[in-house]
């Protein structure tokens, strides 16, 4: 078989970006939670909050590290594997990423050192500030990269001069039509991902570890959060879907599995096997008229189907169709979990309900799977376009020899598979090890071993003593 450099480059990008997104999705939510706990500790003095913060800062650190190293790869991969794309869109996308580095990456990196290693070097308030800065840095980073990504879906504010993109209005480039929806949807997704990692771990700890008080606090907080965030996410997701219908109807048709050029009263398909060749679905199971009702607010509303565009302008329908169902399915599961939790809490049996806690502990990767599935809907659904309607992916791949890309792809697959195993191993290890003991933390509360002061004081005294 002849190796295809373009296909390999795309595979490599898909693989490396999929691997990367796992980690920021967790750290955005986790950084925010750690900042909240630290703030609550400062405010209430309840050491359980400090225990939560100190326990989760270690998983946070390894997750953040994985995100950093896998992220650097991406910032160079645009140029290495998609050189023509970089050349013609660099003037639009490059500055957005420059702002991401200037306003977020340096900020996160600069304060991360203090957040992780500064407990003894700065006062508690300053440490809290460092944690907040890291959390806010993760949000800002998401803002810029989502702006860049959204522009590729719903390009706006640009002009094309000699085949090269230039910017006419930065405001329109950044706040392009899909950006507000995608940003909100992704940020919520990251909060929910972090929330469910903590929720699942707390549920596990309630059953299997001795740190029951901390686990209760963690479970209780994250269940409240889930109760607010997951229905909100469903609502935002719906708005995002309407936005897709308006700007990328072909993607929507693939999500819903609609083939006919126009279909009135389209059913909401629960299951089907889309067939690209026959241009229809097999084994359809659906709820009549529901898709039209959701998307047009009219049971007999018309939706555009895949056949409205030539076959070479359609994405891989099956991938989009199934990924969408995985994402929505997990979303529904999360909402059910949140409401069941609330119900059990109302009944007063939440912390004793073994079946519920066990079920919850299996949900640790749920957010990550949903995020990945969601991104496959978005990115595969945009194909064959790289910039929707303007640049085809296949036209802008670097003219590299295929063996070279195969070599780097193999390296990445080996490296990332190994590291993912290692990451899971250490996550498990850290979670089993549990938080620092309460006695140590209460000492910190009283101030004996408190952050900064004692050590700093001792150091200032030492040189003088030695002189005497």
């Amino acid at each position, binding site marked *: 078989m002849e190796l295809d450099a373009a296909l390999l480059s795309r595979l490599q990008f898909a693989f490396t970006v999929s691997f990367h997104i796992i980690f920021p999705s967790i750290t955005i939510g986790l950084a925010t939670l750690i900042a909240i706990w630290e703030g609550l500790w400062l405010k209430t003095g309840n050491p359980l909050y400090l225990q939560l913060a*100190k326990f989760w800062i270690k998983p946070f650190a*390894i997750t953040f*590290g*994985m995100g950093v*190293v896998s992220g*650097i*790869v991406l*910032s*160079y991969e*645009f*140029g*290495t*594997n998609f*050189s*023509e794309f*970089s*050349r013609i869109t*660099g*003037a639009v996308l*490059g*500055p*957005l*990423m*420059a*702002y991401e*580095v*200037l*306003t977020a*990456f*340096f*900020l996160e*990196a*600069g*304060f*991360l*050192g*203090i957040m*992780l*290693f*500064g407990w*003894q*070097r*700065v006062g508690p308030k300053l440490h809290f500030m460092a944690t907040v800065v890291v959390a806010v840095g993760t949000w800002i980073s998401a803002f810029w990269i989502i702006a860049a990504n959204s522009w590729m879906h719903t390009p706006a504010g640009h002009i094309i*001069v000699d085949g090269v993109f230039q*910017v*006419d209005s*930065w405001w329109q480039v950044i706040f392009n039509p899909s950006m507000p929806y995608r940003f909100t949807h992704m940020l919520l997704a990251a909060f929910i991902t972090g929330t469910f990692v903590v929720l699942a771990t707390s549920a596990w700890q309630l059953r299997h570890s001795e740190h029951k008080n901390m686990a209760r606090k963690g479970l209780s907080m994250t269940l409240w959060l889930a109760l607010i965030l997951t229905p909100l996410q469903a609502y935002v997701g719906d708005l995002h879907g309407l936005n897709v219908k308006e700007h990328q109807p072909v993607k929507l048709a693939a999500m819903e599995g609609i083939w006919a050029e126009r279909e009135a009263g389209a059913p909401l398909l629960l299951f089907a096997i889309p067939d690209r060749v026959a241009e229809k679905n097999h084994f359809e199971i659906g709820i009549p008229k529901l898709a039209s009702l959701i998307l047009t607010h009219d049971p007999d509303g018309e939706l555009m189907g895949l056949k409205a565009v030539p076959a070479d302008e359609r994405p891989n329908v099956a991938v989009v169709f199934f990924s969408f169902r995985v994402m929505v399915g997990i979303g529904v599961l999360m909402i059910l979990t949140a409401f069941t939790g609330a119900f059990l809490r109302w009944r007063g049996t939440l912390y004793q309900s073994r079946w519920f806690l066990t079920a919850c502990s299996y949900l640790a990767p749920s957010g990550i799977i949903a995020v990945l599935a969601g991104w496959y809907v978005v990115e595969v659904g945009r194909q064959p376009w790289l910039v929707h309607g303007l640049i085809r992916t296949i036209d802008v791949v670097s*003219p*590299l*020899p295929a063996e*070279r890309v195969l*070599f*780097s792809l193999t*390296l990445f697959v080996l*490296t990332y598979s190994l*590291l993912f195993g290692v990451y899971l191993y*250490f996550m498990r290890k*850290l979670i089993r090890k549990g938080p620092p003991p309460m006695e140590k933390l209460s000492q910190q509360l009283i101030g004996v071993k408190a952050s900064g002061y004692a*050590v700093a004081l001792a*150091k200032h005294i030492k040189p003088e003593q030695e002189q005497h």
Partner: protein
Amino acid sequence: MELQIGLPLFYFLLLGFAILMYVLLDGFDLGIGILYPWFNTDAEHDHLMRSISHVWDGNETWLVFGGVILFGAFPLAYASIASLLYLPIMLMLIGLIFRGVAFEYRFKSHTSKIWWNRAFAIGSSLAAFCQGLMLGVLVQGVDADSIASSSLQWLTPFSLFTGLAVMAGYALLGCTYLTMKSRGDIQQKAARYGQRLLLFVMLAMLLVSLFTLYRQPEIRDRWFGGAHSLILMLLPLMAVLAARLLFRDLGRVQRQFAAEADISIRHESRPFWLAASLFLLAFAGLVAGLFPYLLPHQISFYTAAAPDSSLSFMLPGVLIFLPLILAYTLWGYHIFRGKVEDYEEGY
């Protein structure tokens, strides 16, 4: 016309600044990874790791910054250079991945510790070597049309040599950083290795300069023609002076240890600044030769520059945030000032 050149020139200088910052900052922490196998005990390895575990992430961010400035301000150059140097970039990234995760996992491991030691040392060395390789390719020049061909133009004796030279240079920076951050045996070792590395680095700089002057007439004319050649001549002179001082300081650190006398803090930190200035001078010499090219004789900064709308959009970001970044980066170093032993493991 002047304005049209003004903005691209600003970004050319900014790119230079970003690369220099990266080379200095990640230089010393990659250097510590390169030196790692020459330190033996677990305690020494702990010390080496802890001296940089709070800063490596920020240091590496300069690499990303350099990349995105190239992308945003000179898209044409980013596209050509990145795909031209495909393999060295990929290998560098793999190296950076392994040494980056080693920071997190080594401190949390027991049985697998030896593997994280290896990942850290080999990853750091590989990344540094690849960077040197790329430097060599840019200095000797390469044909931008060769992306598609499977020829390995970047693999020449010269680029292999610059790969080793950059490794040695980073290791030297690492030695001087360790001299500043440690006491006793580790400091001794660092100062001793530092002296040897300095000799090799000076020799390498001389060879690379001679080779470049011999192979590239344009650069030769620039250095030995016209009035500004006098100013340019200051660079190697100052480099020799800095090297002389550095060698002496490192020797003093060793002797004072032998005499069991206290060394003043100033003398312990000066080697680092001298080594940094050596890098600065070498970098200035490099830019003086390459200017105005991003890819020698093919892509200059004004032909590759993005349109004004992009360059001026980034300007406020750079002017506002870069000073802030420098300020809080300095503050971060200030918080962890002093010897490694003096700060307790944090989290």
